[in-house]
């Protein structure tokens, strides 16, 4: 992880650590904090705790997003402190969820815009002039357009990949595929490195092909306190605790020192979490998929 971030994430980059609630690479975010990156434009549909932490640590000057909160709990207070009142210090560029998905999709497909039937009669286009009305070239129907989004770097956490970076995801798929194809550089972080044959045995599950991947990092538990379907549960208890930590700048700084700056890497984080937390987050049982037979031909 240290090498991947050092080589592929630069000061001033636009960085998308995607994953909708599921598979958020906290491990990569923490390494970016440790390496002291500055002036990043952070991109995520739901900035979540990881961007609250990265903003608090001073890595970011801008945020592109569609829903800014601690899901089911409350606020991201470090981000709020830099966006409320007379002199906001974090530049916000905001869309709706479908608008963000559309932006990644246009970016991945090299299209000049993505059309959608959102934003009618709302204040969002006035708040963000990059959301613009357009007429259909085949009639006079009005839709809205959002511009393509091409992050300098997209970082995706996944259940497994092979050494070439062919990456498989199950459970919530979010917009990782679109965000990865849209990016200039891609880092994949996985729970498990598997043999190429494992990938080839189930090609429908491959979300990201190795050809667009620049680095594969193996980091079990690297998505905690988010989750990895089938491996470990979302640590909702920590999401609830974050409300009080994030509300108090001194407590937040102390948390960053203890859990990010003072730890050398993710292995140390995993060890610090301890066996009780790891056991608490294990799925309560097994729910295997049925298997299908792809058949052999030739």
């Amino acid at each position, binding site marked *: 992880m240290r090498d991947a971030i050092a080589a592929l994430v630069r000061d001033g980059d636009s960085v998308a650590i995607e994953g909708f*609630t599921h598979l958020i690479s906290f491990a990569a975010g923490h390494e970016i904090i440790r390496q002291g990156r500055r002036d990043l434009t952070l991109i995520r549909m739901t900035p979540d705790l990881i961007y609250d932490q990265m903003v608090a640590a001073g890595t970011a000057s801008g945020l592109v997003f569609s*829903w800014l*909160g601690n*899901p089911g709990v409350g606020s991201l207070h470090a981000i709020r402190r830099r966006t409320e009142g007379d002199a906001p210090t974090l530049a916000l560029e905001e869309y*709706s969820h479908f608008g963000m998905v559309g932006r990644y999709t246009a970016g991945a497909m090299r299209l000049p815009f993505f059309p*959608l039937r959102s934003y009618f009669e709302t*204040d969002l286009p006035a708040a963000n002039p990059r959301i613009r009305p357009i007429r259909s070239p085949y009639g006079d129907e009005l839709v809205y357009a959002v511009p393509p989004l091409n992050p300098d770097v997209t970082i995706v956490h996944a259940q497994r990949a092979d050494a070439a970076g062919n990456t498989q995801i199950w459970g919530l798929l*979010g917009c990782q595929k*679109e965000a990865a194809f849209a990016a200039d550089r891609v880092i994949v972080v996985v729970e498990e490195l598997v043999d190429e044959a494992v990938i080839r045995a189930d090609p429908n599950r491959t979300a990201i092909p190795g050809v667009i991947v620049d680095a594969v990092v193996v980091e079990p538990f690297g998505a905690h306190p988010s989750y990895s*379907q089938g491996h470990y549960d979302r640590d909702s208890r920590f999401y609830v605790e974050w409300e009080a930590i994030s509300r108090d700048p001194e407590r937040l700084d102390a948390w960053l020192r203890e859990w990010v700056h003072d730890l050398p890497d993710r292995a140390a984080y995993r060890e610090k979490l301890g066996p009780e937390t790891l056991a608490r987050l294990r799925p309560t049982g097994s729910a295997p998929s049925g298997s299908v037979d792809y058949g052999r031909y030739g």
Partner: protein
Amino acid sequence: MSAAPATRTERMIVAAARELAGKRVCFVGVGLPNIAVNLAQRTVAPELELVYESGVYGARPGRLPLSIGDPTIVTGATAVTSMLELFGYYLQGGRVDVGFLGAAQIDRYGNINTTVIGDYAHPRTRLPGSGGACEIAIDAREVFIVMRQSARSFVERIDFRTSPGNLGGGEAAARLRAEQGWTGHGPSVVVTDLGVWRFGTDGEMVLVSLHPGATLDEVRGATGWAPAIAPDLRPTPEPEPEELRLIREELDPAGLYTR
């Protein structure tokens, strides 16, 4: 031993869940809608297909998901899709019957603000923003809203229109929706901790039932305009013991939604 009487929040959740009787496909918003739809699936609407914006159609959650991206909404679901498909094919494609939203501020026409309190560039309070709410309000065939009611949340003028309701009135809103090709017909019900509101043809919400224990004076004090009251205003039916048991013992034993 008899159970403790229903709190106002529990009355709100039960009344919101009962609105889903007979509905088929419901897009679930963050927060209070989440517990209401999960109660509905266990009571009045066992056939309800829960759609979560995280990319799940037909969720059968084994526990109440704290977040709308919880792993329990995946296991056993009808379909897991990319968010592009979920928003593009399912929602914008017109396959969602009910969009169930929460709100920070609402006006008499059901227009919703979840973006900022105060001026957009220099807000007093930065709220989460749209998420999927703006497109749910436009694309779902009808919109249900569940929220706590106060003079701060039920306001004459919302600070930012994140999700359109009946705009400035019913007729103009219906005309605009038709012209612009929306699949949705806008808000049909607002359930609060004080009562249940429906929308008249003029597009304004009307109080149609009052929760036991709440008074009209209290409703007026918690509404930023002179509220319309239905001539046949009724008391909201009491929650059944089973509904309260489901909320207290199965769905939210920690009181995250109900406290």
